[in-house]
Each structure stands twice: as structure tokens, then as C-alpha cells.
């Protein structure tokens, strides 16, 4: 199974999101074609209600701890409750461009 599918599956079972995006952004970085190293996730779930950003990101990081300890090198996280997502008109920020620093450097 691809890392993207594993991430999707884990986030789905942990947060039952009303909206979920798992985007492989590895192609924007200096890694071989087809890599699964850089991801962006957008998770919309009322499981985040009442939690500050740090707590929300910790939940996502913990859910994907195995992947982060393995091949996943960068994870951009955007978390919203259903109401916050509606207020954002359904758009998460873009990830920054690569600045060239490789993993082994």
C-alpha cells in the first residue's frame, strides 16, 4: 500500500473527517521521482474543537508517528473544525517552496 493511502486510512479512522486531503508534495523537493517523503494534509474534523493548534498538530503527528519515524520527512498540517473550514471557504494555505537542503546534508 502506498504511504499516501496509509496516511489517509489512519487519519480517517482517527478523526472521522468531514473533509480530508492527503497531498504528496514530494515532487516539489529534491528527491527522486515517485518519492513519498513530503506530504501535506488537510483535516477537517470536529475532533479538533476546543483544542489549540499545538494540541491539534500533536494529535496528527501522533497518529502518523510510524510514518514520520520512517520515510516521511516533511508533513505540513492544516487542521480545522467544520465551522472554521467553512469560514476559510474551503482552502488551506500553500506549502513553502523547497530551499534545497537535502535530507542527508
Amino acid at each position: 500500500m502506498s504511504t499516501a493511502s496509509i496516511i489517509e486510512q489512519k487519519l480517517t479512522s482517527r478523526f472521522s473527517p468531514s473533509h480530508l486531503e492527503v497531498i504528496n508534495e514530494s515532487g516539489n523537493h529534491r528527491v527522486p521521482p515517485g518519492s513519498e517523503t513530503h506530504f501535506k494534509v488537510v483535516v477537517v474534523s470536529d475532533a479538533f474543537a476546543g483544542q489549540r493548534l499545538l494540541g491539534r498538530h500533536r494529535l496528527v503527528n501522533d497518529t502518523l508517528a510510524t510514518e514520520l519515524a520512517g520515510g516521511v520527512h516533511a508533513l505540513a498540517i492544516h487542521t480545522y473544525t467544520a465551522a472554521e473550514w467553512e469560514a476559510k471557504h474551503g482552502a488551506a494555505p500553500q506549502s513553502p517552496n523547497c530551499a534545497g537542503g537535502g535530507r542527508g546534508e
Partner: protein
Amino acid sequence: MSNPDVMESIRGQIEGNAIILYMKGSPQAPQCGFSAQTVQCLMACGEKFAYVDVLSHPEIRAALPSYASWPTFPQLYVDGELVGGCDIVTEMYQTGELATLIKAAAERAANSAAT
């Protein structure tokens, strides 16, 4: 994995600097887009801050994720506490929350240095 001396020196850095950023590269030459964006937000707040380039300190890079249970870089600490990584810092910058936090920390640090 993370030897106690490295953890101790990380603790010293975080407790000894009101505002400290662990990043890839330097503020002038960031080596990662996430570090670049974070340092831009921080510089826009207009206060001095400390930084550690984890690419030139592999032992810190290896140990820091377990310090505050945060797996990725950059990591911003203010007044000894983890604020977050790029996405959190950027969002706080956009809401103005970051500037408030940074200015308050810089002011407290200046006051405690003066007394």
C-alpha cells in the same frame, strides 16, 4: 539514542533564550522552505532571537524531536515552551498572535536582564 549531555545542552539553550528557533540553515540562508517561511514570520516581528542550525549540529537534530515530542523542523520555543512548527507559526503570524507573543517575551527578557 539521545545522550543526556545533548539533552542538557538543548535544555540550556531553550531555557537560556527567551526566543529560540531550531531550523535548517541560518536566518540569512535557510536550507528548507519550511524553515525559510518560519524565520520570515519571526523576523517580521522585529525582535532579536536566537537560532540553532540543526544541519550543522547533527546531534541536536537527532535529539530535539524527543525533547518536546515534536517530530519535525523547524521548532520555535518561546519562554521555554514549544510554540510549534512552520504551519502554526505562519498561522499565528497571520492572526497577529505571533507578534504579541514575541514582543511580550522580548520585553520580559529585557526587564529581567535589567534587574
